[in-house]
């Protein structure tokens, strides 16, 4: 890779970061760099300027507010694994990202904005009905996770915006997270699942790596709430997910695994 001397902006506050974002929409936003450095090395990304969010204290807080929990976009996987108040689904997902050296750098915001269909936290935000706070010099808007990923590697984020916080509302129910990859650590998901279920009331069955964007399975969710048996719900899941064949797995395998994850979870409750 050819390394060139490009300007680096290192804001000391969130206000400064947002202002710099507006002034330098061409800059590549860096958080932990665990996705970006791979793209740089491969020549897929060639920064002309850099806006560095790494270590910005305001983005690295986890707070409880009246509407739920607010996760700073700059929290690393290690940060949330260790924070006592982290939601169990968020902790489970963060624990499966890479290995320790990756978790020490990989941020929640980077996972969300990189928007790989296999990003391990993505189905969690869907299942928990999280909202993303996108900030710019014009103000802050909240986008539900369900509307954030628009297509393969395409998001709602505008070039002058930053993802600053993730709001997780307080939701009850049984929760389940499951990642299926080649090995326990350092493997990209073949299928990743986050589920939430309040018997007879509400359900969320959210998957990653089975379509261009993370997705829920509305028909299976309705059936589950209406009291369908695990095998019936699983069959609906298998028909709703939209996986493809790729280097990591086949569509048929992913469909089957998606159904099995849901069936086993529901049977084990």
């Amino acid at each position, binding site marked *: *890779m050819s*390394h*060139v*001397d*490009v300007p*680096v902006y*290192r804001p000391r506050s969130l206000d400064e970061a947002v202002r710099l974002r507006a002034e330098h929409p061409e800059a590549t936003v*860096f958080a932990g*760099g*665990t996705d970006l*450095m*791979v793209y*740089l*090395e491969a020549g897929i990304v060639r*920064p002309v300027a*850099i806006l*560095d969010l*790494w*270590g910005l204290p305001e983005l690295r807080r986890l707070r409880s507010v009246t509407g739920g929990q607010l996760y700073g976009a700059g929290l690393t996987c*290690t940060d949330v694994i260790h924070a006592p108040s982290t939601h169990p689904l968020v902790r489970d997902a963060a624990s499966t990202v*890479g*290995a*320790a*050296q*990756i978790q*020490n*750098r990989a941020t929640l915001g980077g996972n969300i904005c990189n928007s790989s269909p296999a990003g391990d936290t993505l189905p969690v935000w869907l299942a928990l009905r999280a909202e993303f706070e996108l900030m710019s010099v014009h103000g802050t808007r909240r986008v539900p996770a369900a509307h954030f990923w628009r297509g393969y590697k395409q998001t709602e984020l505008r070039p002058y915006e930053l993802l600053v916080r993730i709001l997780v509302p307080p939701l009850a129910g049984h929760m389940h997270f499951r990642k299926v990859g080649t090995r*326990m*650590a*350092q493997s990209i998901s073949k299928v990743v699942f986050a589920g939430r279920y309040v018997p007879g009331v509400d359900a969320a069955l959210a998957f990653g790596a089975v379509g261009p964007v993370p997705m829920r399975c509305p028909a299976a969710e309705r059936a589950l709430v209406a009291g369908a048996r695990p095998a019936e719900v699983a069959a609906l899941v298998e028909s709703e997910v939209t996986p493809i064949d790729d280097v990591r797995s086949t569509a048929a395998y992913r469909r089957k695994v998606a159904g099995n994850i849901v069936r086993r979870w529901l049977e084990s409750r």
Partner: protein
Amino acid sequence: MKVQFTCNGQPVEVEAAPTARLLDVLREDLRHTGTKEGCGEGECGACTVRIDGKTVMSCLVPIFQVHGTAVQTIEGLGAEVVHPVQAAMLAYGGAQCGICTPGLCLSAAACLEEVSHPSREQIRLALAGNLCRCTGYQKVVDAVAAALGQEPG
């Protein structure tokens, strides 16, 4: 750009492109060749170093993010007295070709500091980002467990 940090306690200043990898700065500019390059894409852990105590893949860290931090490489582990992990790796045959060994030692040292009484499972988890093509891991985990005063499993 000019980047200042400490490397194994010594203040250093390097002139490098901002996206230069910490790995290359360590090996080429500072001549600390104990840090190895395996995959160059964050997968293998051969390039593991510690920044402000946390293990990282130095092939994934751009040098501009190192400014103002404290970096520890294998040259700084047990520089004066052999670190217990290093002693145990020797005693238990935890190294063969040795390419993975510097990274493994740093991950193990971090694990021993961060987790008070790690189980074998926790040791395995802490080392999961360090691939070894030679040892089959058993002797490595034995060594780290021994460094803690545990019986080999």
